[in-house]
């Protein structure tokens, strides 16, 4: 696409690692910002070290993790020893030519390295500094740390998910890492707008645990306004909006609705399920017609919501007898043809292979990666009519762009770069260099 990026000309100095921070800068890169990811081989990003997404037949190493390749798309990668004085000098030079600095270390790491906000603004008075610590930099427990799952637990998100009288099901992934990344990007862009208008930068102190609380929806106000107890009968209500037999209290899924559940479909596999939800009597009648108006469903008692709530277990069981005769995409299409809200539970494989919508909208783009070969990368969930918004290429190999950035951006000579490799500033002096680094230094 020949469109310019909306953030063309914006440079982000990226100290982030693991998932939430890299996901933030990846998005800014998709919008056209230049992202310079700063790494050090002796303190590798744990996602680079992870082995679970190394493809079969690929040797394990810092450039072999598929999850890293996708999470860190759209970035330049440099290696720089910020624990050395010479490395710190180069970092300062980079800050002076950057618009935004982002990091997701625990709360006092940047300060201890002499890179707290007060230092950053001396180097670049209008710098935007976004910190993404678990508990934030402010508050008595600022030194506490989180991973996605513990942030979800502490924010109240985990408790909301599950069936009554069982442990919480929670989120089966680090939702607050992905979403934390989006908040990091939101904070950077919001502060950028403030800078455009006022000329002033600022420190944005984001907290991963805190951001999850608002995402519990009306649960918070139901507590502070109505005094509702969270540990109550029939709550959380599984996939339903109300639990059979329990008091009719809102479970924060939106309006009360029956049916509202996941139903097993033909095949019976782990992801052979389809969700169906009817939010009005008319939608229910439509579903009854799609099912072929079986006798159980035409019972007048079920034509209104109170009756459907009373007999929800019966309804769910009977719907599932029907859904098990159909394949999940076929079932969803039958429902959708008459306006019934239904979609298959889609696995990762389904979304990559079987989802015609994501395919047509270009949500996966192919790129070559020196170690991982040609692969698909997740793109961007919106389109802008005048600027590009899409994944631009896989993650950098470790240190792939060090020379390019040092010479092109900071104006170092080739000799200074070579010296930096020899004295442990740009690569650990005693660590063998990858072939591509040797090539880049020729």
């Amino acid at each position, binding site marked *: 696409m020949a469109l310019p990026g*909306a953030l063309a*000309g914006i440079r982000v100095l990226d100290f982030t690692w693991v998932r939430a921070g890299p996901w933030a800068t990846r998005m800014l890169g998709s919008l056209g910002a230049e992202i310079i990811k700063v790494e050090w081989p002796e303190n590798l990003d744990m996602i680079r070290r992870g082995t679970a997404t*190394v*493809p079969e037949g690929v040797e394990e190493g810092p450039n072999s993790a*598929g999850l890293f390749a996708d999470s860190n798309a759209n970035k330049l990668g440099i290696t720089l020893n910020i624990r050395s004085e010479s490395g710190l000098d180069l970092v300062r030079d980079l800050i002076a030519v950057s618009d935004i600095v982002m990091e997701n270390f625990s709360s006092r790491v940047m300060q201890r390295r002499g890179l707290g906000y007060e230092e950053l603004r001396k180097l670049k008075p209008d710098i935007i500094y976004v910190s993404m610590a678990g*508990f934030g930099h*402010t*508050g008595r427990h600022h030194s*506490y*740390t*989180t*991973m996605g*799952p*513990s942030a979800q*637990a502490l924010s109240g998100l985990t*408790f*909301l*998910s*599950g*069936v009554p009288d069982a*442990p*919480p*099901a929670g*989120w*089966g*992934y680090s939702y607050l890492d992905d979403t934390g990344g989006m908040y990091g990007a939101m904070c950077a*862009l919001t*502060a950028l*707008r403030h800078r455009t208008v006022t000329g002033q930068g*600022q420190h944005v102190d984001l907290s991963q*645990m805190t951001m999850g*609380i608002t995402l519990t929806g*009306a649960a*918070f*106000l*139901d507590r*502070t306004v109505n005094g*509702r107890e*969270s540990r109550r009968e029939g709550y*959380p209500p599984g996939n339903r909006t109300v639990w059979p037999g329990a008091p009719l209290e809102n479970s*924060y899924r939106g309006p009360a609705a029956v049916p509202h559940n996941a139903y097993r479909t033909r095949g019976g596999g782990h992801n052979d399920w389809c*969700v169906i*939800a009817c*939010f009005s009597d008319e939608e229910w009648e439509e579903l009854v017609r799609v099912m072929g108006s079986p006798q159980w469903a035409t019972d007048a008692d079920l034509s209104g919501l109170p009756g459907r709530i009373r007999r929800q277990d019966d309804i769910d069981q009977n719907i599932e007898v029907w859904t098990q005769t159909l394949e999940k995409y076929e079932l969803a299409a039958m429902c*959708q043809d008459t306006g*019934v*809200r239904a*979609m*298959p539970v889609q*696995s*990762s494989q389904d*979304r990559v292979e079987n*989802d015609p919508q*994501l395919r047509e909208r270009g949500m996966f783009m192919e790129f070559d990666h020196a170690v991982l070969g040609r692969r698909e990368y997740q793109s961007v*969930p*919106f*389109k*802008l*009519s005048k*600027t590009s918004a899409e994944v631009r290429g896989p993650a950098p190999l470790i240190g792939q762009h060090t020379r390019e950035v040092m010479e092109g951006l900071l104006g170092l000579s080739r000799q200074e770069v070579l010296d930096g490799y020899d004295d442990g500033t740009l690569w650990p002096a005693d660590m063998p260099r990858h072939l591509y680094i040797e090539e880049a230094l020729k």
Partner: protein
Amino acid sequence: MTEASIGQTGTALAGPLAGIRVLELADEKGQFCGKLMADLGADVVKIEPPGGQNTRSVGPFLDDVPHPERSLYFWHYNTSKRSVTLDLESSEGKGLFLRMVPTADVVLETYPPGYLPGLGLGHDDLARLNPGLITCSLTPFGQTGPWRDYQTSDIVHLAAGGQMASCGYDPEDVPDAPPIAPGGGNAWHIACHHAYIAIMAALHYRAMNGEGQLIDASVHESCALTTEGAVPTYIYTGKVVQRHTGRHAFPGQSSRTQRSTKDGRWVQITGGNPTPRRLRALAEWMDTYGLAQDLLDEKYHDLDTFRQSIGHFNDVIAEFLSHIDLEEAWQGGQQRGFPWGAIRTMEEIVGDPHLEDRNFFTDVDHQELGRNFTYPGPAAIYNGSPWSISRRAPLIGEHNQEIYCGELGLSRQELSLLAEARVI
């Protein structure tokens, strides 16, 4: 910066989006995006159908009394906005809307694809009146594609987007469990975060180049992009993750990380960065209860041995946690460098002193009720321009006079006639 100075500057400064006006034509799909912008300082004018948006009929309600001005759901998602009522399908209503468009920076809308253009209110129509206008159309599947007109809801998106495929139970905990949709509203939250980013990027581009544009944002794509490692795991290994109770979906078996405590609660102990010092501190803590078993042995403080013995570690830790209460468990872990977290409910979150320190809890005045209520406040502290709720959600058409008379210059008589004709 000290905490006190944040509080002081926070009251004196405008929010980072001050000066931006948003016209919000959004239901449950987009209202959270409008709230984020409004709490950050934008003037978000919510344009509701006469009688109020249907999101006002969603519970829970104040004191469980259903009423369009008592929906806590609506309150939560519409803070800091103003409200006018308007029938966009009437010619007078359409005319009033078009008179507001030149004052707007952003139109945020969630109507089905084609609806607004069908009324002559598509982005191209509006941009003729306001070339810098940014229109964000947030729809279930975007403006194009084979599923464009499919009907959805929050849980329907959580199914199609992949959230449910990753969330649920081990069969030992709940036999035959279906995939479990995480807490309600998160499909909309995920979409609104992305819509917000797109709008801010477009605002930046406009500031640099003067041009507005149209954003075509998709709830489905937003959800499909928000499943962490599930898609890369498939792309790189061909494996599909399986659901497990309270921990990461994973292609094979994995250790439990959600453990029960003596007081019948749960603590989440995923991940972290163990060091010999931390492992020793953990063992010494367990030993104060006589529950360290053999973990005081120096060999377990070596990281290689730790990794090889992780199953043993998990067993000993689980046994220990079952002998202490939740509060001691998670804070004790944190104090020793482990990123543990209590599975909290609102009872434990409201009043959390750390969140108090961050001025998270926000007292919001509901003057018409003569009451104040505590709301969840900012996720981030902006030290140069505060993120804070400026007022409760608007009443239906609360700002009709302010905007139609005060800004557009209608007389009170004209306003009355429009109300009688159900235009507003």
